């Protein structure tokens, strides 16, 4: 039983930390920079597609940035 106490404590400390660092919301008018193409998650869709295909064919790992994508017999 005694081992459960620290775990509960751990979770509450974690939650406390999360709420303590809850940041100020960024107002809609502050989304101006984020609306720029260079601030998009993938600023160049074609670069991202070519890179994904290149590394898929040369390495054993795949995925992470998105789900899906065309199959390829190259690996």
């Amino acid at each position, binding site marked *: 039983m005694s081992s459960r106490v620290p775990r509960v404590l751990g979770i509450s400390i974690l939650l406390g930390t999360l709420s303590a660092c809850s940041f100020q919301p*960024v107002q809609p008018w502050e989304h101006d920079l984020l609306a720029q193409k*260079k601030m998009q998650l993938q600023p160049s869709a074609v670069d991202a597609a*070519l890179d994904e295909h290149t590394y898929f064919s*040369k390495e054993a*790992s795949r995925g992470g940035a998105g789900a*899906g994508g065309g*199959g390829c017999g190259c690996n």
Partner: protein
Amino acid sequence: MQLTKKNPLAIRQALAFSTAALLGHASPPAHAADNRDWEVDSAIMFYQETGRVSATEPILRLRMDRGDDHFLTLKFVADTLTGASPNGAIPTSSAQTFSGPSGTAGYTTPANSVPLDPTFHDARYAFNAEWEQPAGSASKSIYGVNFSTETDYQSIGLSATYNFDFNQHDTTLTTGIAANADSVQPIGGTPLGLSTVVATPAGGGKNEGEGGGGEAKFNINKHVYDLLLGITQVMSRQDLVQFNINAGKESGYLTDPYKILSVVDTNGALIFPDPYVHEKRPDNRGRMAFYSQWSHQFTSDVLRLAVRHYSDTWGISSNTLDAHYRLELGQRQYLEPHYRYYKQTAADFYHTSLRSSDLAGLNYASADYRLADMSSKTLGLKYGLLVGKRSEVAIRVETITQHARPSEVIGVQNQQILLPDIKASIIQLNYSTVF
């Protein structure tokens, strides 16, 4: 209603003149968003591995605004591969002769060289369409289909992604699913995994399927499923972070029908008379990727950092660091250095070569260097120039160096560089515009 029977577009134009008169303008002001936008992104990539494959890969992407936040995106990719690719066998002190896939022309590899299959060439065409539409007040759904075809490989896939915004669009939750059904038609049939590659003389015409126990199956399937959960958070006016979890499952024929392994004696030398076996991989693979990305805008430059941790049920685990820094050169030009570092552990069944004594006890084996303990490093630079108001041209130059480590160096193999580094260079030209 009556309005739509006339030329409907005339309403907006006539209105523009009426408004100009009302506001005392000489003529209606130009409307930047006059017509809904078509974004065009295109690129052509030239890829060259020193002494090995080269590829030319053009890509075209169209994103069409269909009004009311509906978008249709179409993507076309062609990929032409020529050159030589490692067949999995190790280099030895004497020349080696291999038969081509089932009766096609064989080839001979000189002594002390990595055996490369020179018949390796193919063309791949891929098409992808995505439809994006709002779903409820603060969310959107994206549905996708994709097809691709090569000589011996076809793939068809479906995907669906759902994005939900809250916190005044500061937070976006993403869920996505994707399924792909692939079919492989190995040239000359599907070899039986771990069976002996039957030697045919160079240029010979004997079907290895007959004597070597190859299965004469010509169409085999592979299924790939993906599930994605992600959160994107605006941290400040300059910061955007994303965290994704991507789980995947692959099942069916996951083996490379053209890859073989060298079988050696206790001293590391090829056994006689049949020194090669076909590779065989498990027919299931579960994988998991944790991905996170941070974009930060300085005064105008942008740093984009991504890290990924990946692991799968084949025993491979990898870490990736991907960094881009976009350096603005005034208003119309930029330079973007790119650094990427990737490191993976070997698959449980990766063997640079196989001891003949171990062969009987093995379920799976592959000598594909892409399943080895391996790292790769990318250095790149992109230069972009804005042309006019809404177009951009760019050139990208990159080098990729891959360094793989053998699972084991047996006896005389220490006289060979079993897995020499692979160097590739990329030159890519981009053009994008909006009209």
